[in-house]
């Protein structure tokens, strides 16, 4: 019964989204207000159907209805409720349903916020959104149907053990989906602008807001993924250049570039075609990422099991690229620039340079990610592209971007005299010197760390000087303030990555009960090794008393968990975090009978600041989203001059 209801809702969503898309495009072509209203109703109806289908699935999961195929596949009576709820996105079919649900929410909110505005563009935008929705509904209805009826079993295996192993695994995927799926909205708006052959000033604002919100989610999601890897995988790092990590970074890079080019577009009326290309690329990269996790082509900690939906997603990706390219080729020449560039050594010149670097970075990472596939296709040989490639390519580009983060906002808009440029660029050298020397005094010797500190110090001084003025006029200059908040957080992220990745201290320790070992300023005592039996897993854990400089600080319990369905045990390291850095213990070998354990002890300076700074980035992004004037989004009115005086990444002038 539940399975039948779910199938009915999904089939209805295929019909409604397809119908709505056709009506949207027709209304755009015929400029029909009635058609637009109808398309809006179809958009709302799609959302209701997806919410209902997701609700039905959650109900089936919570009531352990093992006659529903997905529940039989991932459900279990022994898992806690939070795991059962999160099982929705733990496996392939459920995750696509979850995708459709989030897409529905985005479409409904975007349709509602623009219900009386931008009538010129909205029919086509709704057409594009519902076309994407139709594809995902088709996926759910056919190759990835979670609502198949099966002969009920008494109990199921439960979801992937990695999902059960840490609460961050429950939070990370929804944020990632909110980021990924949300990119459909700016894509639809950008395509609508191309179809109309026009990108008016008032339409830039919703475009920017639609891009900024998923950007915030994606930013947080990437950080949560890194944090999870750090807390669970046991090697003490947070980024491994895993193909799927890269897949989440790629659209983030193009979206960040687009957020910058939008500022120049708002301010100068140029880069229209370029901004639209970046927004389209962002969406296409999210679909590429979906393909990477769900096709079974890439080997990754993230991959769902091998599945038949790979070819279907590939067809959609190909169609979306051809649609985007054709639209761009047909219309890009119609998007006339309203202004022009005065000088390369200017704020807008640096924005352009920044965009170039983001695109180079995107291509560098994309090539490194798909290179093993190229080699295997051409030479039939297996290979992998590892950390050395990515580090050697990404670190210099990253350092240049950090440098621009200082130089860009320091320079004035438009043409400036040599003395103006000198006055703008020289003072922050003091900031660069301070951070460089501080780092050197505390033992930093890696050249890239020292360069990062110098560029970070430079950018920090520029950012702080810019933060001072808008803080006085927060009401009027919220976007500018928010932009600099994000910049400040980015600087902290860069600097802490530089320090934490090169100044880490690692030591292997073997202890038996009662034994003591010194690791840097810390000393650890093994209090004992014990086994704990839980319904869904068996944990073997070692208890350590941790002291720093002779003072007792905490007890850490790194463990190995053996889940029923997993071939190999999963470790859970334990971390003692302080402002100055983390002390991290990860089990390598553990023997309860002999009361002995071998652990990897890792001291990483400042690493916790990365998580905090990224959350601040997200908050800064949200702050920049709040409309300056009430109803700004809804009225779609031409912005007042004061609205354009906005921040660096997320707005205009300093």
């Amino acid at each position, binding site marked *: 019964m539940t399975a039948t209801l779910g199938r009915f809702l999904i089939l209805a969503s295929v019909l409604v989204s397809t119908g709505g898309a056709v009506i949207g495009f027709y209304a755009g072509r015929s400029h029909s207000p009635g058609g637009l209203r109808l398309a809006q109703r179809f958009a709302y109806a799609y959302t209701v159907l997806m919410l209902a289908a997701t609700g039905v699935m959650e109900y089936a999961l919570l009531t352990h209805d093992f006659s529903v195929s997905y529940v039989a596949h991932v459900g279990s009576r022994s898992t806690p409720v939070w795991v059962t709820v999160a099982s929705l996105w733990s496996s392939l079919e459920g995750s696509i349903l979850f995708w459709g649900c989030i897409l529905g929410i985005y479409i409904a909110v975007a349709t509602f916020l623009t219900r009386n505005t931008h009538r010129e563009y909205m029919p086509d935008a709704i057409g594009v959104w519902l076309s994407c929705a139709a594809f995902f509904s088709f996926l759910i209805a056919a190759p990835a149907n979670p609502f198949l009826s099966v002969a009920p079993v008494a109990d199921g295996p439960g979801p992937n053990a990695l999902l059960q192993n840490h609460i961050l695994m429950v939070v990370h995927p929804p944020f990632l989906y909110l980021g990924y799926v949300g990119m459909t909205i700016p894509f639809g708006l950008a395509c609508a602008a191309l179809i109309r052959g026009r990108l008016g000033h008032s339409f830039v604002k919703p475009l920017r807001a639609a891009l900024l919100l998923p950007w915030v989610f994606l930013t947080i999601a990437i950080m949560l993924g890194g944090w999870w890897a750090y807390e669970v995988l046991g090697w003490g790092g947070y980024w491994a250049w895993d193909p799927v990590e890269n897949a989440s970074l790629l659209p983030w890079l193009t979206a960040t570039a687009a957020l910058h080019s939008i500022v120049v577009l708002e301010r100068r009326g140029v880069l229209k075609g370029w901004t639209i290309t970046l927004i389209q690329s962002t969406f296409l990269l999210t679909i590429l990422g979906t393909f990477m996790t769900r096709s079974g082509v890439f080997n990754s900690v993230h991959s769902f099991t091998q599945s038949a939906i790979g070819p279907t997603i590939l067809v959609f990706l190909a169609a979306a*690229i051809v649609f985007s390219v054709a639209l761009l080729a047909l219309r890009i020449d119609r998007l006339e620039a309203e202004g022009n560039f005065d000088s390369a050594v200017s704020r807008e010149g640096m924005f352009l340079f920044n965009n170039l670097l983001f695109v180079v970075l995107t291509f560098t990472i994309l090539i490194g990610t*798909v290179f093993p596939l190229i080699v295997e296709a051409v030479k039939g040989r297996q290979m992998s592209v590892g950390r050395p490639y990515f580090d050697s390519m990404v670190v210099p580009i990253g350092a240049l971007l950090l440098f621009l983060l200082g130089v860009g906002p320091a320079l004035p808009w438009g043409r400036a005299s040599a003395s103006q440029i000198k006055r703008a660029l020289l003072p922050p050298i003091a900031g660069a010197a301070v951070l460089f020397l501080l780092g050197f005094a505390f033992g930093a010797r890696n050249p890239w760390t020292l360069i990062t500190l110098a560029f970070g110090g430079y950018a920090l001084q520029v950012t702080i000087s810019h933060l001072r003025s808008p803080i006085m006029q927060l009401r009027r200059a919220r976007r500018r303030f928010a932009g600099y908040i994000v910049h400040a957080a980015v600087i902290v992220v860069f600097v802490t990555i530089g320090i934490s990745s090169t100044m880490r201290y690692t030591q292997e320790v073997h202890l038996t009960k009662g034994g003591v070992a010194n690791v840097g300023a810390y000393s650890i005592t093994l209090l004992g090794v014990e086994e704990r039996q839980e319904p869904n897993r068996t944990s073997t854990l070692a208890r350590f008393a941790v002291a720093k400089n002779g003072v007792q600080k905490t007890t850490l319990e790194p463990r190995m968990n053996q889940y029923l369905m997993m071939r190999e045990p999963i470790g859970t390291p334990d971390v003692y975090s302080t402002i100055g850095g983390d002390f991290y213990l990860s089990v390598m070998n553990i023997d309860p009978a002999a009361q002995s354990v071998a652990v990897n002890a890792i001291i990483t300076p400042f690493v916790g600041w990365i998580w905090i700074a990224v959350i601040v980035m997200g908050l800064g992004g949200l702050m920049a989203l709040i409309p300056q004037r009430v109803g700004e989004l809804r009225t779609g009115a031409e912005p007042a001059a004061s609205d354009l005086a906005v921040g660096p990444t997320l707005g205009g002038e300093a």
Partner: protein
Amino acid sequence: MNRTVLFVGLFIAAAVVAILFAGLGKDPQAIDSPLIGRPAPTFALREVGTGKTINLEQLRGRPVVLNFWATWCVPCYEEHPTLVANARALQPRVQFLGVVFQDSEEKIQGFLNERGHAYPTVVDDAGKTAIAYGVGGVPETFFLDSSGTIQAKFVGPLTTELLDENLQKAIRQ
């Protein structure tokens, strides 16, 4: 119509789609074992139940399906009926052998009594044989040809189709 945008865009699209298409259908987890094409590491291990020693040399002259498993591994439960059914059908032309590690003989005996058995099972007490074969987890299955050379390796639970596909590689030699 901007032809530059069209051609550059379509070129990138075609390249990306072609590369991804080429990758479809391949299993990225099927990493070729360095042992493939080499003589299987020898061992002499105790058989469960009888206590007699079985060594690899004794099994030369016909293909061998060498299955590493344990009673605490759920995927091993899944593949057990497949292995037993195929062993019944294929032996004595093909020899099946189970190698259990990180387990107790009592549990293994209980498992086999409850779920049936059709071929000998040996105990890898110290896990040395598993290490010699580079076993990362259970189940893992090696397919040896009649001269004792490893021709294929499969990670994860076997189905009859997968077993046939891998066994063919060992028989062809």
